[in-house]
């Protein structure tokens, strides 16, 4: 059984480590530091932590001002408030002037669970990837989260990092090399390709095992940089397998599936099936049960892969 760690927990630890080696790191939060785990940084470096209160617009614009002076602000709150409520501040005061602000948003997707639809961001990838200058990262597990945080700090410009609330299996090795814009093939396969992001990558691996039991060879690709997207790995998969299934804890409109479809349509048209929430809002309930209810599980990936192969 894999070790289970929430990506938000890995974020808090990574921030603290980063804060130790880089004095320019400052962290801002909007009254959710216990949940976003920025409290871990706050405890270690209270002088470099700023709570702005329940004011997400203020969170982003204050971070922008800090960035103009050479600071590297990490601004955290829940994904829905970061990208929804503060969208226009991110666009005009962070991304347009290409300021060095890192937006690390937790509680993305259905796995927010019991808090329900108002708190489950299913549109954030779409919103963030349509803003020029913005890099969009969605790590799959604790190992990748830590690497994303460090690489985001090295990158000069705005970065959106999508993190989750619930514990997810650690699937990547510590020596795994993460690079912004580079995706990684986790399993080789020749029949079908499953492209997943974030917490869905573990589900994709599970589906791969189930498909193998039925003698279906599935390739699994982890796309943790949704923008700029790794076109080569997608085109190669389209050429070498019979079709592509994308999986994301996000609306099928505008997220990973759309990004992959755009690459395919312009470069190598291929069969594609997008798994995500089907243009609906979420609801309250246990996070894992919600994933099952909305088809974000290995069983549905297997079913969709088989449907695609029978086309």
């Amino acid at each position, binding site marked *: 059984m894999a070790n289970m760690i929430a990506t938000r927990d890995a974020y808090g630890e990574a921030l603290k480590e980063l804060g130790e080696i880089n004095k320019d790191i*400052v962290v801002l939060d909007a009254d959710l530091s216990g949940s976003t785990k920025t409290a871990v940084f706050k405890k270690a470096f209270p*002088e*470099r932590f*700023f709570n*702005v*209160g329940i*004011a997400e*617009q*203020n969170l982003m*614009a*204050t*971070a*922008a*001002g*800090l*960035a*103009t*002076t*050479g*600071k590297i*602000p990490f601004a955290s709150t829940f994904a829905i408030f970061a990208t929804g409520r503060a969208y*226009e*501040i991110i666009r*005009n*005061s962070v991304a*347009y*002037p*290409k300021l060095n602000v890192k937006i690390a948003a937790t509680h993305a997707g259905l796995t927010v669970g019991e808090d329900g639809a108002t708190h489950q961001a299913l549109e954030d990838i779409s919103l963030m990837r349509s803003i020029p200058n913005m890099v969009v990262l969605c790590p799959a597990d604790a190992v990748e989260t830590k690497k994303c945080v460090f690489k985001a700090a090295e990158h000069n410009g705005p970065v959106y990092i999508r993190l989750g609330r619930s514990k997810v299996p650690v699937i990547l090795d510590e020596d795994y090399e993460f690079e912004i814009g580079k995706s990684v093939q986790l399993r080789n396969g020749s029949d079908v390709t499953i492209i997943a992001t974030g917490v869905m990558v573990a589900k994709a691996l599970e589906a791969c095992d189930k498909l193998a039991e039925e003698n279906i060879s599935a390739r699994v690709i982890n796309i943790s940089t949704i923008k700029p997207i790794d076109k080569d790995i997608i085109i190669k998969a389209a050429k070498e397998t019979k079709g592509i299934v994308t999986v994301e804890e996000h609306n099928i409109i505008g997220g990973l599936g759309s990004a992959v479809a755009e690459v395919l349509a312009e470069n190598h048209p291929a069969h594609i099936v997008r798994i995500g929430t089907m243009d609906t809002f979420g609801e309250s309930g246990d996070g894992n049960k919600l994933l099952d209810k909305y088809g974000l599980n290995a069983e549905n990936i297997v079913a969709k892969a088989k449907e695609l192969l029978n086309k």
Partner: protein
Amino acid sequence: MASYENLEKIANNLRVEVIKMLKEAKSGHPGGSLSACEILTALYFKEMNVDSNNPNWPERDRFVLSKGHAAPILYAALAEKGFFPKEELMTLRKIDSMLQGHPDMKGTPGVDMTTGSLGQGLAAANGMAIAGKLDSKEYRVYALLGDGEVQEGIIWEAAMLAAHYQLDNLTVFLDHNGLQIDGWNRDVMNIEPIDEKFKAFGWYVINIDGHSFEEIFMALEEAKNTKGKPTIIIAKTVKGKGVSFMEDQVDWHGKAPSEEEAAKALEELGGVF
């Protein structure tokens, strides 16, 4: 009483440039540029420690034009100060110009923050002031707000934050000309009593005549001597100040003067094309 003859001359030059620039651009915002003229003149030509040869000098005082639509007066001041050649002013709002319709810190030397979407500049100024405190820097941060702008919710988020973090290295001007696009503040959305609101939010508040250099500098001195809280200088101004037919006229919020109107304005200001 100190003489501000030189600054008055500069202010008049800046007004002339604003009129010329807007006539050439055929669009833009004269009213709120002219009302803020003395404030920007005071900041750039006496108060602020900036270096036009080194616009990104880390120790410089910062200025955030939160009411970004008053870009013409900022550009006129920056050009006069030598941040870029004055000829650039005639490219305002045109394709490939370094002078965008609203301030762009990446394209224009001397612009400390990209603004234009109202309300965000004050929060950005807070960020700069926090950084200054964190690194024990001497620099001060200045911001200019419009009076219509304070209707934005983020202004009050930022107002709370500045007081909470005791940003006494921040001085904000409110260009209180009373007018916004749709009319008088009091008719569109009343903001009064604006001084009491900022006081209640924990700010040190000074009311002045925003066209009097003497009052502007007295207020700036008071702001510097005020410790433990940010200062807002509520500057009573006249929209379109200096051009008789633009004064207090809401129509001149966001309209460029025609050839004839510009000529008439320049005649009043003693400027030439």
